[in-house]
């Protein structure tokens, strides 16, 4: 295997190479460090390369493995985290100039769990400043500059987990951790052609993660396959006394698993009505593949509620509270994106009554969505109605008139899980993607569905033209 092949290998493949001592954790870490140095800046994907820490962790992993103490599939595997997760002694910038020199003296629970699994932190990855909470309106929204998708450097990597998406896609890390308040794992995964999993709210501890919206924020894996997402989720899920929203549930996943019966999947009505033609075509092709292992029910109406309005009210109110000091200090003017410099001043005006009414509506909407999802094993729709947005153009001007059903705000408002997988290419050689969403704690089923899809397709194995 060449270094390039190794860089794009799956976690399961890498684990097999490490366990059989065909590659050492130090050698593997060096391959990723070299690629991070070579491509990280070009992609706007990296904030800090943690070389010293990584090499020390890799040496320790190597020693343990040589001594016969193998911790499991993530032992010796290099990874990156979105730069909103606290890492002891290493800057955690939240992607924003005012926090550029912020250093915590503890590790986020997710980081600690990955260390305990023997994984190696090679980079803190770029992100949209403050996870997009101030209302950014174009790709230039991080102090590290716009994130670029490795498929076409003139286009955005998506946000707000921009660096996580680009780094996984370009083979700069074996996997990454992203966060989602409303779309921040699924969007960059779609725009970078990788597989992203948004877990159920409460399954993964957020201790040590920047808070944008306490009732919406979630952390999850961004990988090159659904199987890899299962492996990573298995390591980071579980109750944490330091995050009281976590539930007493474990998620176990060691062997690649496939659906055990013919599953029932709903195809959302109007899912591609306002989608780009290539997105529509790829979605239709994907449905043919899915019908080989699942029973599809077509034209299913998605529950009609003001999902976007409720989510944006909650993000504005909770985000303004979380960043109250920053807004009052006037330091929002140091943010990069033009709209982020003013957004906080309107967010702060959302009244308590508006917030409470949004939260009262949310309860009814969440119950309605849970009831809807309980009829199916999953629902399916394109992840995004378009391919990635061009850099330098405001989002609303990029593809006017496009749109899709509100699965992203709905899924986030209800806190239910979703997985997205690449399913082809559209305009300008940019990836398209489909998402499967299910009821709370149905991650295993969603991973099985995505595994079955990826067993029949090779979109997730395609590599971006960055090395050529």
């Amino acid at each position: 295997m060449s270094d390039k092949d190794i860089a794009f290998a799956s976690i399961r493949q890498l684990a097999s190479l490490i366990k059989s001592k065909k590659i050492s954790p130090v050698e593997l870490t060096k391959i990723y460090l070299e690629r991070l140095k070579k491509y990280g800046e070009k992609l706007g994907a990296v904030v800090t390369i943690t070389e010293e820490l990584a090499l020390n962790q890799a040496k320790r992993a190597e020693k343990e493995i040589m001594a016969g103490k193998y911790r499991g599939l993530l032992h010796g595997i290099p990874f990156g985290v979105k730069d909103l997760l606290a890492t002891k002694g290493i800057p955690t910038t939240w992607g924003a100039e005012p926090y550029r020199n912020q250093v915590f003296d503890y590790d986020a629970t997710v980081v600690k769990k990955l260390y305990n699994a023997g994984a190696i932190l090679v980079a803190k990855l770029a992100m949209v400043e403050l996870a997009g909470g101030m209302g950014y309106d174009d790709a230039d929204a991080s102090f590290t500059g716009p994130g670029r998708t490795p498929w076409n450097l003139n286009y955005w990597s998506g946000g707000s987990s921009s660096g996580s998406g680009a780094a996984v896609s370009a083979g700069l890390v074996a996997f990454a951790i992203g966060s989602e308040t409303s779309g921040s794992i699924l969007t960059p995964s779609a725009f970078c052609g990788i597989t992203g999993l948004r877990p159920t709210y409460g399954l993964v501890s957020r201790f040590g993660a920047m808070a944008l919206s306490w009732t919406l924020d979630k952390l999850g894996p961004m990988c090159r396959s659904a199987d890899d997402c299962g492996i990573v989720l298995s390591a980071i899920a579980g109750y944490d006394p330091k995050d009281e929203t976590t539930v007493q549930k474990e998620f176990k996943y060691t062997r690649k698993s496939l659906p055990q019966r013919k599953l029932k999947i709903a195809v959302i009505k109007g899912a591609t009505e306002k989608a780009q033609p290539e997105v529509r075509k790829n979605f239709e092709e994907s449905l043919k593949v899915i019908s080989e292992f699942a029973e599809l029910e077509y034209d299913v109406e998605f529950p009609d509620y003001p999902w976007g309005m409720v989510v944006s009210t909650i993000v504005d109110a909770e985000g303004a509270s979380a960043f109250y000091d920053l807004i009052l200090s006037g330091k929002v003017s140091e943010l990069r994106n033009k709209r982020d410099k003013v957004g906080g001043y309107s967010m702060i005006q959302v009244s308590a009554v508006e917030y409470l009414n949004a939260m009262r509506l949310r309860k009814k909407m969440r119950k309605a969505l849970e009831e809807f999802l309980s009829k199916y094993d999953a629902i399916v729709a394109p992840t995004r109605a378009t391919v990635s947005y061009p850099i330098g153009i405001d989002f609303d001007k990029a593809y006017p008139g496009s749109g899709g059903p509100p699965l992203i705000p709905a899924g986030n408002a209800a806190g239910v899980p979703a997985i997205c997988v690449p399913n082809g290419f559209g305009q300008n050689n940019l990836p398209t993607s489909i998402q499967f969403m299910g009821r709370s704690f149905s991650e295993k089923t969603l991973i099985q569905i995505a595994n079955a899809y990826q067993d029949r397709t090779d979109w997730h194995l395609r590599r971006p033209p960055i090395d050529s």
Partner: protein
Amino acid sequence: MKIKRRKFLQFAITLPALGYLTEGIEPQKQNETQSEEVEKLIELVNLRHKVKFTDEQLKMLKEEIESNIRRRERLLNLKLSNWDEPDFKFQV
């Protein structure tokens, strides 16, 4: 100019109520009321935060506030029953 806290509170406290007062007002007057509210809310930002906005920033702030007002009108018009509780629970 130093902001007198009491004056600020008197000014601010009237603002959230405007949304409820627009029901039954004819569209033209409603638009006038809304644009008056936008101006007052921008004034409030200036009064409270003393930020020197550029023209472009002021335009964006106006858009943001207008969009929030539209959202608020829609949100507060959605029917809820007296006993509908918010989606979180208080625990001791």
